[in-house]
């Protein structure tokens, strides 16, 4: 077993020896970061604002259309004896309503905020899942099919761009503060940030820490979603051929490296599609519900 493992690792070790390292000619023409570059497709400039339609805008609109159409379509075709799709959507609905929303806030609040939290979950889920579907959106490299220049297939997700998670986070951030202020008044809301049991001189520093933690939520909520999706896409990109092209090895080395990284690419792809996409949507919705519930809760 050990010998077989060593034999499998030998080509990798050979790649790391100084002799091969000095012979390594990194392919300068391949720029992996261009995979995430946003070329304007339809240039729109209003004053200093750049409102060009590009890949990211296309993915946001696509995710929104998919979310609305699928849900409306399934809602219209509800049957007493549900088929498989309806069962899955009903399970998702129960998850959103009972686990995510009702589990983290009072019933009155849950009634009010369930549509928002549910829509957030579905939109992020569709956006993440669309990101693993190869679509012809790479306008940098084109493929000629019967003379027509068609953009090559590429992976991209709206949530792999910081702007989209940040916009969603800002909506969440402002809504939970507004809910808190409406429930307790501005002063009462600020006071509720200090945990119960803290009195006197200790309240000042703790209040400062709480203020900082509210601003850190802005960063953590948006960067968590963005970084997870971006890192997943980068892993798939590098493992599924990017590394082989970048390292520019000899034929034998490329084949060995390609087989190893290609297998890993499939594993990462399954991991991303099966777990990360759904989990991140779930986390975002759950944290939104926790923040909303925490803002109006009586004690901290």
């Amino acid at each position, binding site marked *: 077993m050990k010998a077989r493992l060593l034999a499998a690792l030998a080509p990798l070790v050979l790649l790391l020896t100084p002799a091969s390292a000095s012979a390594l000619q990194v392919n300068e023409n391949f720029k992996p970061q261009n995979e995430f570059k946003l070329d304007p497709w339809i240039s729109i400039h209003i004053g200093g604002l750049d409102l060009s339609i590009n890949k990211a805008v296309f993915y946001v609109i696509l995710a929104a259309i998919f979310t609305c159409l699928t849900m409306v379509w399934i809602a219209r075709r509800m049957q007493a004896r549900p088929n498989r799709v309806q069962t899955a959507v009903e399970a998702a609905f129960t998850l959103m309503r009972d686990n995510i929303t009702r589990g983290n806030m009072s019933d009155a609040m849950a009634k009010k905020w369930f549509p928002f939290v549910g829509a957030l979950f579905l939109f992020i889920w569709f956006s993440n899942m669309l990101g693993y579907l190869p679509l012809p959106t790479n306008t940098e490299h084109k493929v000629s099919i019967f003379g027509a220049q068609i953009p090559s297939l590429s992976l991209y997700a709206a949530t792999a761009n910081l702007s989209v998670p940040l916009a969603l986070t800002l909506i969440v951030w402002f809504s939970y503060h507004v809910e808190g202020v409406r429930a307790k008044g501005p002063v009462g809301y600020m006071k509720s940030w200090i945990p119960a049991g803290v009195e006197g001189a200790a309240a000042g520093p703790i209040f400062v820490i709480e203020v900082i933690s509210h601003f850190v939520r802005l960063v953590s909520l948006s*960067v*968590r979603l963005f*970084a*997870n999706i971006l890192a997943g896409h980068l892993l798939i990109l590098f493992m599924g051929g990017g590394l082989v092209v970048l390292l520019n090895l000899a034929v034998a080395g490329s084949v060995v490296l390609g087989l190893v990284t290609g297998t890993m690419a499939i594993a990462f792809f399954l991991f991303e599609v099966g777990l990360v996409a759904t*989990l991140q949507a779930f986390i975002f919705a*759950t944290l939104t519900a926790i923040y909303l519930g925490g803002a109006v809760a009586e004690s901290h």
Partner: protein
Amino acid sequence: MDLSVINTLAATVAENEAIGRKAGKAIALGVGAGLGTVGPGIGVGYIFGKVIESVTRQPEMRDEITSIQWLGFALTEAIVFYAFIFGLIAFFLS
């Protein structure tokens, strides 16, 4: 001593500096992202270990524990990517 020697020396230094800067970026990405995985790695292991412990103690709480488990897993796992993203920023954007 000819002044052109200084120019040659300066050119060599500049070239070395460019290589050094590139190496520094690569080291920043590798070491930063690599060390950044250590803490969350321990954390994820700890979460799953505790989940196994809890479920074996109270199997009837399994469903509740599972939902908390994924929350904890995702929150911990995200920390890897914070390190990774800052490494990428150092590598590509600086």
